[in-house]
């Protein structure tokens, strides 16, 4: 088997975060692939929740949209959108959330609304979707994004979703009940919030990735953990399951 690509490793690392989770809220793309992989390899009882209202979906294929028929057909229950956001997300019944974004800042706040000025954007992005309330209500948030200085920025063009706001105490002041982001998983490594400052700090790099490269590709002055680790490369069972899943 050929060696894992950085993107494959990113997906595998994200899947490992769900080894002991009860439930995960996911959008489409890499987060969805990672969560389905986690069910296959680590945690067959993991409850996949898609914002379309499908709770406990067991897709065989990676869905293109969050509302593909296979999700509804295999779900434990299918609920309306108001029920999803009020009873399940708002009330904090979903444990982990996997989110992506166009921009992430050092406090894991996310922008998925605009690049440039709101009234005259250079790039209009899709917008909030479910992310703000998901990030406020789920116990834990894992952000998955490509690692470059356009994505990991000093200052967001627009705060769509609050991570740790402007630092310690922000979430409490805003009345959020979930614990906030636990990691940003990129194709270069893993950033985790410093328990004291809430600032995303490099805690692990992928094998063969130099710290200097990670720092150079981060838009803020990235701090590096004193206990910097190397990510365990994908094991054969993880990688073969991922490739088999993507080929379905």
């Amino acid at each position, binding site marked *: 088997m050929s060696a894992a690509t950085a993107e494959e490793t990113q997906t595998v690392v994200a899947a490992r975060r769900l080894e002991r989770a009860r439930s995960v809220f996911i959008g489409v793309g890499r987060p969805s692939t990672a969560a389905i992989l986690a069910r296959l390899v680590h945690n067959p009882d993991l409850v996949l929740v898609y914002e379309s209202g499908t709770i406990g979906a067991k897709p065989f294929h990676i869905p293109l949209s969050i*509302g593909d*028929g296979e999700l509804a057909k295999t779900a434990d229950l299918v609920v309306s959108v108001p029920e999803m956001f009020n009873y399940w997300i708002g009330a904090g019944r979903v444990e982990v959330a996997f989110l992506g974004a166009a921009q992430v800042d050092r406090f894991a706040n996310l922008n998925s609304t605009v690049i440039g000025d709101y009234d005259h954007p250079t790039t*209009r992005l899709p917008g909030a979707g*479910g992310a703000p*309330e998901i990030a406020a209500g789920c116990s834990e948030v894992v952000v998955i994004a490509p690692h470059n200085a356009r994505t990991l920025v000093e200052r967001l063009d627009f705060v769509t979703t609050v991570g740790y706001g402007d630092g310690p105490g922000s979430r409490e002041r805003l009345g959020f009940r979930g614990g906030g982001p636990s990691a940003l998983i990129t194709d270069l490594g893993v950033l985790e919030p410093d328990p004291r400052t809430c600032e995303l700090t490099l805690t692990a790099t992928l094998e063969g990735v130099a710290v200097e490269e990670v720092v150079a590709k981060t838009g803020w002055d990235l701090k590096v953990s004193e206990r910097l680790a190397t990510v365990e490369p994908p094991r054969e069972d993880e990688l073969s399951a991922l490739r088999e899943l993507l080929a379905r």
Partner: protein
Amino acid sequence: MAELLTLSEAITELVHDGDSVALEGFTHLIPFAAGHELIRRRLTDLELIRMTPDIVYDQLIGVGAARKLVFSYGGNPGVGSLHRFRDAIENSWPRPVEIEEHSHAGMANRYQAGASDLPFGLLRGYRGTDLADHTQVAFIDCPFTGETLAAVPALRPDVAVIHAQEADRAGNVQLWGIPGVQKEAVLAAKRTLATVERIVDELEPRAGGVVIPSWVLDAVALAPGGSRPSYSLDVTERDNPFYKQWDVISRDRASFSTWIDEHVHAAVRA
């Protein structure tokens, strides 16, 4: 009681230029046939409301039917951008479009408030975001606990249009699968239309079925395949390849306009 009309008759009777119109269906059961009928009417002044504009509103925005768009997620699910939506906001093509955006939770609660005939919906949300400065939301204190909560104004569309699997001859409608926010949209709206895949003698109870009684609908119209390229669970499949093709078709203004001429204007519906 709902009248059984043709789609063309129903749209003519229920939708007038200047109206606020909500075509709902969350990924599933998107009323595309009705959207195409709106395009054929060549309306230019609609306020379009929909949580996920999806391809159906990309098309309406691209032909210049919308004065305003109210929404919470303007992407092509799993594919990327909605290019006509982006072109309208970034370059005012073919016309400027006013936008009012919310989060999904905000929109869901706005519909629920509308369906309940309450003035506003209530949720934990919007706090700390920049969205709060760019949309209709107010923060109020709970009279019992003092907790600060977000209030969002009720949605009361002039017209709601939904698509469902089936109706009976009396105009009672049943849908199943992902139910989205269609029941709320219908009960919130002043005038309502359901398009359906088929008309049956009697509705058969379905697991997870949502029944909308004839007496809260104005019209039911037969539109087989009317949710394509979205889908109607157990009747049609989601056309995922088309969602990917749309990225190419819609990227360019000329190829978009050609597609609309060939697939919407040239298509004749009884």
